[in-house]
């Protein structure tokens, strides 16, 4: 098997006396779509924030493409090839959809000076239009992102995460608050992107149907520890997982 895109080793994180994450380890390989699920308070978000550097783990190591990301800022991680979406709406509301997408790619092109004296679009309009078309937002290209529906803004958020061609994308509750029609479209686009580009996804999600149909592998957390790991079918049939969700 190839080297992992994301490697988590013995991550520990406590808040006061509460151990939110207890020695979690796993690898995610190129092209995988990994679902990270668990009941409320299981430590998913804490682990997610430790991966993204927003929380410093008490122990353990996170590596992306073989490189430790300890102490890295979000912008440095992005340049390392890590894209992300946010649980809450996270577009730039007073900028057009096109400008949102161009912004997501511009820092990966040229130098500071070339970005000042070069083309206003950093030569990215064509690429941004292709990304907009991929998410079927072409008719909204020049609209202000803040004027779009919730689901459309989620699509713009995802398009931004993919614009720089990341090797790893972390999706934080992508299905939250999205209506069923848009959700089906969103899932189909994520699967298509994964198939076309072989990008690795890590998805935190509460919507089981969404996770089961999108992910190729699922890790279940409960009380900060991994209690199960396997394919969607294996997880569905796992009694420990059922007990954890039902409080058994």
């Amino acid at each position, binding site marked *: 098997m190839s080297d992992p895109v994301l490697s988590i080793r013995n991550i520990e994180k406590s808040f006061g006396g509460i151990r939110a994450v207890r020695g979690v380890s796993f690898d995610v390989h190129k092209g995988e779509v990994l679902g990270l699920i668990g009941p409320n308070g299981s430590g998913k978000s804490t682990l997610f924030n430790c991966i993204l550097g927003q929380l410093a783990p008490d122990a353990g190591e996170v590596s992306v493409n073989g490189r430790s990301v300890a102490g890295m800022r979000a912008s440095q991680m992005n340049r390392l090839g890590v894209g992300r979406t946010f649980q809450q709406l996270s577009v*730039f509301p007073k900028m057009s959809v096109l400008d949102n997408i161009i912004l997501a790619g511009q820092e990966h092109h040229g130098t500071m000076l070339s970005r000042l004296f070069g083309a206003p679009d950093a030569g990215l309009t064509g690429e941004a239009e292709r990304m907009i078309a991929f998410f079927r937002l072409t008719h909204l290209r020049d609209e202000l992102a803040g004027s779009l529906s919730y689901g459309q803004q989620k699509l713009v958020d995802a398009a*931004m995460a993919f614009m720089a061609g990341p090797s790893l994308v972390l999706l934080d509750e992508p299905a939250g608050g999205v209506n069923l029609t848009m959700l089906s479209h969103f899932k189909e686009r994520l699967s298509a992107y994964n198939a076309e580009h072989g990008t690795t996804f890590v998805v935190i999600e509460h919507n089981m149907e969404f996770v089961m149909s999108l992910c190729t592998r699922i890790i279940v957390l409960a009380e900060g520890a991994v209690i199960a790991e396997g394919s969607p079918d294996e997880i569905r049939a796992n009694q420990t997982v059922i007990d954890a969700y039902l409080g058994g």
Partner: protein
Amino acid sequence: MRGLSVRDVWRSVAIALLLVAAILLPIGQKNYIIYVLTSWLIFTIAAMGLNLTLGYAGQISLAQASFMAIGAYVTALLTLAGWHWLAALPPALIISFVVGLILGYPALRVKGHFLAFVTLAFNTLVFLVLRNEDWLTGGTYGLSGMPRPDFGLFSTDKHLPFYYFTLGITVIAALALWGIVRSPWGRAFKALRENPVRAESLGVDTRRVTLLAFAIGSVYGGLAGALITPLVQFIEPGSFGLAHSLRILLMVVVGGAGYFFGPFIGAAVVILLPEVLRFTEGYYLIIYSALVIVMLVFVPSGLIGVWGRLKAKVWPKQQVRTDMAEGAGLQ
């Protein structure tokens, strides 16, 4: 990128007409009117800088007058020492840039009201240095007798040539700012204002962008100060106190923060409107203050935002919610 849109053409025509008006406006006017018009241009430059820092990048600053002071005093000291204004300008701008960069550092840690107080304290600090270090700044007596630039065939000693000289500098400064806000830097400034966490996650180095927003805005303050020196030919600390920073802030807010032409309109309201209202004699300041309050209450997005609001009311946009249309089986 696509070619010029109809909107771009209209905008270009409007700018050309305004430029012609700015050229013709002072002809045949008394010296005082030309002086006021020149002040309008200079404060427009200062407000352009604050508009970049506050309007585009979302970083509050109550210290723009202190950068005018830095530009004004550096230019004054050097021109009094025999330097030509053009030679004195680069040091004035470089020092403004560096001090602006340093002032930007607190913005990496504090936001909103707290940042406002940090910049307010900086403005007070600069004022105190100018007042107390009289061996350098002349203290409360200030500095006087600074020459206006002479370019051989074109001397700016008289008010009208100095107005055109200032207009030329204003146009250059505006073009430079237009280039910045249209560039990827401008996009990064707006991203910093709207959602710094998301911007950082997309690779934007928000620390560097914050510092640049302060530093470039300060350069515009320094440039305005470098022009005030030969205009007034007398500078003293009181001309660069907190009240003046608040006036520049008022120009940005009244004109429309984050709109390119906002500072031109805002500076016109703050500098020119009181002069226009002088016919009301003792009431002009009361009327002026009332008008400003009415504007801020009813047009919080600034005067330049009025057009957008009118347009939205007269020609409301119809947007198809395709997701809902699909859900309802309409597509």
